Each structure stands twice: as structure tokens, then as C-alpha cells.
């Protein structure tokens, strides 16, 4: 009775439209990594807890492990690859490097994309605010101090939300 066969979807990822046949059960995280070869998006827990897989979905952060690829047909996705290249780091990446806000780097793509959303939508008025805003992302290396410092600088450069 039910058809679990593939579905064609078209998704804009980092400004490029991709059309693919996907199984309904394919996670967006696996779509990005396995179908598009965009391995910048990391996968830690696959149940929404670690934040490593965070991407922007129509401009707002979303867990790609808690989103199905079929659900984003017609949507706009941005991954860490949208933020810059090794030779030309984007501002969030540069702030992370300057503040030594990463060690092993596993959590970093998720933090970068979370911060991309926060800089657009969150007041980030003080450190407490910044820590709370980052509380959905887990880092096992840095102890968070330097990540908070990087975000503090980015928030200062941005100024108050308009």
C-alpha cells in the first residue's frame, strides 16, 4: 500500500541548486555529506543533543540530523562551506581562529553555523547571554571560554540588533 520509493527534491545549498532522488528516510545530514559530498557538516549524536550537524535552513539554524532531506525540497540550506575557504576565511571562522576557539575541530562547523544564526537574530548582549545562546552545542576540547571570546568579539563588531 505504501510507497517508500525515492522522491525527487531540489534544494539550494550554499547558493547552488541540486536535484537528487532521495529515500524519504534520508537525513539532511547524510544528504549533505553522502549525496553532495559536503563533509563539512559533522555528525555526532544523531539525536539533536550535540549540535555538530547544525546548518541554516531558510536562514535559521536547524539540526540536520533531525531534518529529513525530503522536507527541505525547495528550501535554502547553508552549511559551513558557505562561510569561507581555507585561503579566505569568513569573519566567524577568522574570529574562531584568532581566539583559538577550536582544538580538534569536530564541533566547529556546528558552532560556526549556530553563530551565523545568532549574529542575525540574537541580542548577545553579555557573556551570560552568549553562553546561553551557545548552550545547545557541545565541545569536548576547548572548555568554551575561547568560543565565548570569539562570539563576544563578533557581537561587538556587529553592534546591537536593529
Amino acid at each position, binding site marked *: *500500500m*505504501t*510507497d*517508500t520509493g525515492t*522522491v525527487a527534491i531540489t534544494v539550494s545549498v550554499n547558493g547552488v541548486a541540486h536535484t537528487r532522488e532521495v*529515500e*524519504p*528516510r534520508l*537525513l539532511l545530514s*547524510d544528504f549533505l555529506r553522502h549525496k553532495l559530498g559536503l563533509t563539512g557538516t559533522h555528525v555526532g549524536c*544523531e*539525536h*539533536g543533543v550535540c*549540535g555538530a550537524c*547544525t546548518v541554516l*535552513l531558510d536562514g*535559521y*539554524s*536547524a*539540526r540536520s*540530523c*533531525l*531534518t*529529513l532531506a*525530503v*522536507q527541505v*525540497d525547495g528550501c535554502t540550506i547553508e552549511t559551513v562551506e558557505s562561510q569561507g575557504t581555507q585561503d579566505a576565511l569568513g569573519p566567524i571562522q577568522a574570529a574562531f581562529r584568532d581566539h583559538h576557539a577550536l582544538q580538534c575541530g569536530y564541533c566547529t562547523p556546528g558552532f560556526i553555523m*549556530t553563530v551565523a*544564526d*545568532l549574529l542575525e537574530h*540574537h541580542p548577545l548582549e553579555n557573556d551570560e547571554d552568549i553562553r*546561553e*545562546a551557545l*548552550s*545547545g*552545542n557541545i565541545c569536548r576540547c576547548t572548555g568554551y571560554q575561547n568560543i565565548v571570546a570569539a562570539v563576544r568579539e563578533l557581537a561587538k563588531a556587529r553592534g546591537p540588533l536593529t
Partner: protein
Amino acid sequence: MKPAPFAYVAATSVQHAIEALAAAGGDGKIIAGGQSLMPMLNFRLVRPSVLVDINRIPGLDRIEDTGKMLRIGALVRHRLTASDPLIAHHVPVLHEAMNHVAHHTVRNRGTFCGSLCHADPAAEMPMMALLLDAVVEITGPAGTRHLPVREFLVASLTTDLAPDELVTAVEIAKPAPGTGWGFAEFARRHGDYALACVAALVESRDGAACNVRIAAMGIGDTALRLSAAEAALEGSGFSDEEITRAVSALRDEIEPMSDLSGSADYRRHLAGELARNVLGEAWRRAAPEVPA
């Protein structure tokens, strides 16, 4: 850690969603924000044959003022509930509670109604809906019915919803102007599920408490209204002794469980102390009624 195969229907209307659920013959599942369902699919704790996505149904993403009530549609995300000026103005206790729900990214997707349907005993929204005597609007093949949330929430992860029904909205009666409120929860980390949480509403009529409402979670199989503690305070002047009596009534009426995060005794103690603070706070905020 990957879902089992299922068919996928992107519903375009409430009717379409109900038909897709009916066609699935009891083996369909609605997906709203996916923030509770996707982990369960990934762990294969649920294996529906059909997933019915309601995210593209127009008109469900609004909070509306219908006069006496606020109506929260099925696609209202936590982000909106937490920032909506109508909620902040009319139901400040809910505004406060929403600040404690999950993390920024999860709030972008998760929905109020989805949380009610998931009925997690440690989630804020079912508890707040109980506190506010919310009414759930349910639509199915036979039409629309309205059910008090007390009857909707049956047990941990269990609601009164039939397999071919969906929740289209939840309605919250605006508390009377001047209603005092308090909210407190204890979690290991901000945004994590709480060990215990208590919220209260109270009105003051000539210095006597009326309409005392107290709800709690983290202390039982479901969120609870604490009717013994409510009764102990109804008509009182909220003196320290009266609050202490209500706190012991509360400790007697709950049956918390021991788990890795805390023993039953610890949770009972914690719930009582949270209640003491919350009740004091609510009474301080309860404005005496202004005679007309």
C-alpha cells in the same frame, strides 16, 4: 541510528493530513518540528509506515487573540511562543517558561502543539498547558472536538489522540488582569530537561487568594496539577505558615521516582522548595482587585 523506511506525505491541508493518516490504517505519524520524533525515528523506537508532514499546511503558524482566549496554531514554533507580544502581555508566566525550553536551534523548529502530543513528563509545555487549563483543538475524520488538556494528557508519552486525528491548535484562556504568577525550575544546565519545575497563578480578592493554580513536572509520570496544595491556599492570605502548610500538602501528594539525576526524596524536597519560592513570587505579583 537511521530511520527504518517509510512513505512520506507532505500534507497541503488539514483535510489532506487526516486522509493520509486514515489511509495509513493506524500506522501513520504526524511530523511537526521533528525535535522529539526524529530522535525516536533515528533510534527506531517508532517505525511508522507513513510520515505525514504538516509543515507546509498554511495558516497553522499563528498565535491569535480571539477575545477571551489566545489560540496557538499547530505550527507555532517555540521561538515564536517565546517572543510573541500577546503571550508576554497576557500570559507572562508562559513567556517566562518558554525561556527554559531547550536551546536556540531546537526552538527554531519545535512546536508547542508537538510538545503536547509528545507528552514528555519532563517537558515544560504540557505542564504549562495544565496550569493554564488549556483546551486542545483536535481535528479528525468526524470533525473537530475540543478537549481540556487534563483529559488530553493520559500518561507519560500517551495522549487521548486517535491515530487518524491531529491537533490543530491549543487555546489558552487569558488569566484575569492582575493575576500573580511565579515560575521556577531546576536543571543541571540551562535549556536541559529540568529535574523539577513548579509554576503557579493566583488572584487576590480583598487580600484573600482565589483561583490558586499550581502545576509541576519532573516529579511523576506526567506533569501534574497539585490540587491538595491549591485547596490549602484557596481563600488564605498567603502567610508564611499558610505557604508552609501548602508545601507539605504538595510533598504528600506527589510520588517522584528515583533516577540517575536524583532520588525520590531529593526531588520531593526540591519540588517543595521551588513551590515555596514560586508561591511567594506569585502572591507578591497578585495585584489587589481595583473596585469598579
